[in-house]
């Protein structure tokens, strides 16, 4: 007698409380407490946590397409990177004459390339609102065009996964080229200010952590609402029996398309929050490996639960920080091992394991 939804709420609430604590208490401890206080968190910790939260948002968005709609997207990092580039372009425009070449109009890398004027696609990025719009519109538009073509032709399963991977790889190669006008290999970096605030300042870092936390919590609640609507149930049905849904009269491709576009936009927002916190965006963010890592976060946390993706993203990235600090050469091996172990032993991830434990305790 298993009721759907029951038991989910408790875990979801716990995750939300934990997120709220990170979002509001840690910036406070960082800014308000003296550096020698035992409750003080360093600026390093603050940026690190902020970064984890943007990854959690990225994992959440993948869980929506993979965990609920069954689309194993292996190029989801592309949308994250595009959102990051949009924010990076705004931050580049804020540098103004403080670049190495001091050019009033062009970013350093364009001066270096001997460019005389700003390419048309850089226009507008002086404005914060325009950049924010592009953060969601560019990933959304790419997801729309890609999804429209792929879902209408009913490309599914492994084939779709491979195409998404090819998509992000193509973007990686394109953004590597200097002629693209996005800083080539080096990407965009040396940012100075965000909305007039020094990007290195502790206060801005704390605010960015808070913004990441608030965005993540909002996105989590919106996604939870979404999966509990009738549309959410149609999407779950598509995951399990795609053709059956079609024979009920639903246009499967449209449902997939909108979930994919929405998730791409969320990933773009995650990227935009990530870039000012790490201070750089370069083509390596398009690397297929990054997209695979997102899949591992979600698989490890437990897909199709939303909070599982958050838990997985934070845990895997925390391990990454620790392990790459201690023994950088074994990180990829341990990541691979984790993926194999999760796939074989924990098909429902950590969340599934915890749930099983809880049920055993009850009975």
């Amino acid at each position, binding site marked *: 007698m298993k009721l*759907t939804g029951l038991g989910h709420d408790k875990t979801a609430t716990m995750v939300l409380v934990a997120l709220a604590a990170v979002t509001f208490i840690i910036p406070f401890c960082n800014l308000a407490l003296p550096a020698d206080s035992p409750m003080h968190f360093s600026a390093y910790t603050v940026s690190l946590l902020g970064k984890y939260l943007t990854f959690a948002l990225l994992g959440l968005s993948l869980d929506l397409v993979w965990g609920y709609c069954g689309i194993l997207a292996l190029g989801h990092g592309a949308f994250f990177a595009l959102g990051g580039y949009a924010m990076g372009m705004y931050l580049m425009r804020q540098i103004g004459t403080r670049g190495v070449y001091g050019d009033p109009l062009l970013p350093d890398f364009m001066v270096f390339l001997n460019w005389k004027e700003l390419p048309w696609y850089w226009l507008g990025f002086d404005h914060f609102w325009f950049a924010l719009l592009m953060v969601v519109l560019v990933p959304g538009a790419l997801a729309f065009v890609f999804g429209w073509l792929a879902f209408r032709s009913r490309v599914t399963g492994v084939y779709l996964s491979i195409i998404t991977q090819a998509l992000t790889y193509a973007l990686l190669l394109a953004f590597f080229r200097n002629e693209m006008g996005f800083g080539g290999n080096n990407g965009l970096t040396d940012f100075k200010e965000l909305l007039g605030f020094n990007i290195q300042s502790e206060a801005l870092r704390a605010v960015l952590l808070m913004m990441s936390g608030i965005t993540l919590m909002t996105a989590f609640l919106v996604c939870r609402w979404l999966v509990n*609507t009738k549309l959410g149930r149609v999407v*779950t*049905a598509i995951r399990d029996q795609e053709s059956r849904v079609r024979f*009920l009269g*639903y246009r499967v491709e*449209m449902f997939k398309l909108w979930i994919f576009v929405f998730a791409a936009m969320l990933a773009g927002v995650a990227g935009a929050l990530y870039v000012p916190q790490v201070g750089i965006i370069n083509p390596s963010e398009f690397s297929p490996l990054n997209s695979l890592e997102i899949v591992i976060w979600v698989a490890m946390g437990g897909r199709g639960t939303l909070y599982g993706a958050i838990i997985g993203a934070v845990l895997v990235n925390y391990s990454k920080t620790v392990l790459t600090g201690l023994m950088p050469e074994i990180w990829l091996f341990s990541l691979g091992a984790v993926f194999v172990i999760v796939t074989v032993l924990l098909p429902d991830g950590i969340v599934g394991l915890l749930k099983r434990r809880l049920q055993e305790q009850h009975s």
Partner: protein
Amino acid sequence: MTLFAENSLGEDEKSGSGILLAEGQLDTRHGPILYLEDVSVSFDGFKALNNLSLYIDAGELRCLIGPNGAGKTTLMDVITGKTRPDTGSVFFGQTIDLLKMDEPAIAQAGICRKFQKPSVFDALTVFENLELALKADKRTWPTLFNRLNGEQRDRINQIIETIGLGTHHQLRAGILSHGQKQWLEIGMLLMQEPKVMLVDEPIAGMTHQEIERTAELLLSLQGQRSIVVVEHDMEFVRSIASKVTVLHEGSVLTEGTMDEVQNDPRVIQVYLGG
């Protein structure tokens, strides 16, 4: 026939030049609701359907029988838009060309299908399965903001009672027995309020009692909806069908009552491989 004819005769008479019908409107005044004419489908040279012609009347309960590979499932695939025939025409009423429509459009027009292997959504509850099937605006945006009203809720509960899953409505469909899944899928068909129900092997995996209730249910729908049943169980076919069509090697071998069909020497030969 008044059940299906949706246009008033008076208007047509006024026009004075025969019958004018808007395209896409179901017209069954000539009797049949499904017209399949000279339909052929081949897969890699194998002719799954071979110049098949078949007419299903409005409100009729028709059984399709035939040995394995006779083309029964392919026929359903063609009607529901899953498979495109190489040649031939398939019309819904006199005016709706099903070959120009895809699966969701055909389903929305009122042709619904139960699959051979019960296809329900395991992760959803019995109630949610029926909710998804409910006749409603099935575009993305209205689906997102859809709220069930009291009437729709009653309708779902009523169907749950009809299919005998009253105590199971909050159960996930994945843990139902095979027979219960079959019933749930039949319930999902009813939720769609179809004009034509295509039912592929409805009683596989059912107990004797369940089979009897299935027969009762299908008989009770006769007259309101056109029902095409594919079944191997001859006893079951005999208990429900007034008219039986025998398919063989992709064409109609013969049609008639169960007795006529069973005494047809060609049918005996096909089944016994004489």
